[in-house]
């Protein structure tokens, strides 16, 4: 073999190596691209995974409305959904304010950490300290009507009676939402979550600033909500006569702080710091609202001791020198009751 031969052989080998390396690289690129296209690559490499996917994919997935069966049961589910979304009309007799179930249970009771109904359904019957007894789902929903929907000011003057079709339909909807959910197992995303206590505690004064900056654009500077041209409520009232009463869970500052932190502002959950969430919840719940439906003939102090002792709530306390819990004035006639006739009466 001449030296020229060896040189040529060397050149050939390096050329061969070059071809193989380039080819191998090409093959790797091709396979990598294939893997990416097929979604086999973890989201943190591909950068395709959104924040929402990472936080929500672990939660239970309830069925969508298109899956409601075409059957008598499906009809009950639809009626239940209609009550849930448009409570003041479809169960209007028992609603004494301007709220609907879906105001706090977002996305029709599906959204994790806004007390989704698929998680609630599988936790009842449950013992509740609130009334010191075993609560069925019907008992629990009765509580919602009594406090959150302020049934005391409704046409019926109280929640739907036990055995009412309102419960049948609502429970059908919840049961259907929980299709495939494990029973009696706490599920991720249930309730409103919790906000860690902060060193500063909470303060309505600081909360006023948070409210003006983040909440007033929708709920109005006076917190009374906003309507469309027809007077239909678009943004729910947070205090005042058309909001939840003093007995509602949302009147407690810890509950409201958790709801705010995990759900508000709509489309930007988690935007507020823990401190801001506590402060704004304290601000919202430092305003007067309809009286506690359980007060009856008791004084505010008696009601406070019996039902609110140890709670994070301003009920029965003075804020800025004003005693809270007195309640907004009772409406002249029940909310949603037919009006007196207009114009000339039949006698004229």
């Amino acid at each position, binding site marked *: 073999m*001449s030296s*020229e*031969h060896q040189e*040529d*052989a060397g050149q*050939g080998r390096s050329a*061969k190596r070059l071809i*193989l390396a380039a*080819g191998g690289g*090409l*093959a790797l690129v*091709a*396979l990598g*691209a*294939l893997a990416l*296209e*097929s979604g086999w690559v973890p989201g943190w490499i591909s950068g395709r995974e*959104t*924040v*929402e*996917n990472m936080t*929500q994919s672990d939660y239970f997935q309830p069925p969508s*409305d298109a899956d409601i069966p075409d059957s008598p049961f499906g009809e009950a589910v639809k009626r239940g959904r209609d009550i849930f979304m*448009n409570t*003041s*009309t*479809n169960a209007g007799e028992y*609603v004494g304010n*301007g709220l609907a179930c879906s105001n706090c249970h977002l*996305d*029709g009771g*599906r*959204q994790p950490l806004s007390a989704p109904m698929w998680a609630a359904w599988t936790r009842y019957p449950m013992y509740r300290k609130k009334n010191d007894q075993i609560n069925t789902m019907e008992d629990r929903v009765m509580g919602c009507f009594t406090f959150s929907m302020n049934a005391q000011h409704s046409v019926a003057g109280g929640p739907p009676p036990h055995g009412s079709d309102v419960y049948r339909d609502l429970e059908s909807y919840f049961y259907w939402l929980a299709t495939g959910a494990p029973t009696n197992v706490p599920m991720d995303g249930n309730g409103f979550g919790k906000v860690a206590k902060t060193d500063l505690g909470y303060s309505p004064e600081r909360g006023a600033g948070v409210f003006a900056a*983040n909440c007033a*654009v*929708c709920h*109005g*500077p*006076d917190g*009374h909500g*906003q*309507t*469309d*041209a*027809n*007077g*239909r*409520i*678009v*943004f729910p009232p947070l205090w005042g006569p058309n909001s939840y009463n003093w007995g509602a869970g949302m009147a407690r500052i810890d509950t409201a702080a958790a709801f705010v932190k995990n759900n508000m*502002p*709509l*489309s*930007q959950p988690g935007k507020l710091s823990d401190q801001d969430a506590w402060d704004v919840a304290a601000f919202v719940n430092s305003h007067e609202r309809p009286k506690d439906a359980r007060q009856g003939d008791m004084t505010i102090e008696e009601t406070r001791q019996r039902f609110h002792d140890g709670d994070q709530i301003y009920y029965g306390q003075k804020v800025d020198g004003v005693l809270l819990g007195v309640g907004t004035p009772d409406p002249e006639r029940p909310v*949603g009751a*037919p*009006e007196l*006739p*207009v*114009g000339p009466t039949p006698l004229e």
Partner: protein
Amino acid sequence: MTRTSKQTASRNVKPGEDFEPWESHNRVPLLVIWIALALGVWGTALLFQDQSSYSVAQGERAADEVAAHDAPEGGAALFLANCSTCHQPNGVGVRLAVPPLQDSEFAKAGPEVVAQIMLRGIDGPIRVKGFTFDGHMPSFAAALDDDEVAQLASYVAGRFGGADATLGRDQVGELRDAHAGSGSWQGGAELAGLVPGLPTQPAMPAMAQAGPDPAISDLIFAGKGDVWSCASCHGGLGQGAESTPRLAGLSQGYIVKQLRDFRAGERQNEQMSFVAKELSDFEIEGVATYYAGLRVDSTARPALGGDLARGERIALQGDWSLGVPACFSCHGPSGFGVGADFPALAAQQPAYLASQLAAWAGGHRNNSPLGLMDRISRALPESDRRAVADYLASLPAVPAVEQKAMARIEGGGDEL
């Protein structure tokens, strides 16, 4: 003989005249085969994947079309698509806000009455089943054709009023001609002339009929100095076109804020910044009041090839897996707008809407309160932005709101 020695030989020996180049038969290196195989697998898989998503999309589209056109009979489907966001799927309306259709005096009056209400819409107080409503119903004259109005009117009168009569397409055509240009029904008071035996209807409140200040009118229709008129781009009645927005029926507060933002450079648009810089506060408020009070039929039509069913879903329910709530949860249940910060979306020009969503997503528009629209627009893929813009363009135009109601809404709705 190896390849290298062959090459060397050919280099040393001059080829003869009749030399033919040749190549000996060598084995293809294994690696090249692997590469080819890998590329082949990749290509096929990609082809197959595209094919499968294509057929899935085809299937979905076909299913949507079936759902939209065939599943329930015409009237029922039209009712769900056009009436149920306000009057509700079960026709009971919304307490103290939207009148019920079920057993209402107007549904019982028969399909001809229902059709005439649909063709003109309502602006004024109306008493239905013992309740007075502050009635603002859009006109469906531009959104629905004669056949659709006929089907819907027959369906509503039959289902909710128990009427036996049905209405034909030709009769709707005659009604349409008879009512062309009459504007909306002025509440129950005017409808009382159409429906005999109605319970007493509330009187129509006196409305300020004075036109805009002459200076404002000049500005709108003739311009001022170097500034061209509003109407030259937005149309004589503020109906807009393509990427120029519809202004009719937007709230006064919203128009004022946008013009001030253009003037201050908070919202970017070359033409509008130029115009707004020449406007005084008085002129801005006058122009805004004029357009807020206009009630004009929709001229917008879906034009972006968006998936209307998807757009409807985003508008009505949102897509919470993307962190996007329903458009209507802030902009009002029919896209009529809420207060000064949430403009009307119904009948807005789709090219304009899509361009604004893109501007927010790309960071070129920054004047949304709390950055709400920035975040939502970024979360929506481009196809969804087109879908929702097209869906909103298919809706009937927002009814103009008389000044009293407007003041109440912008004041925070203390009479909820």
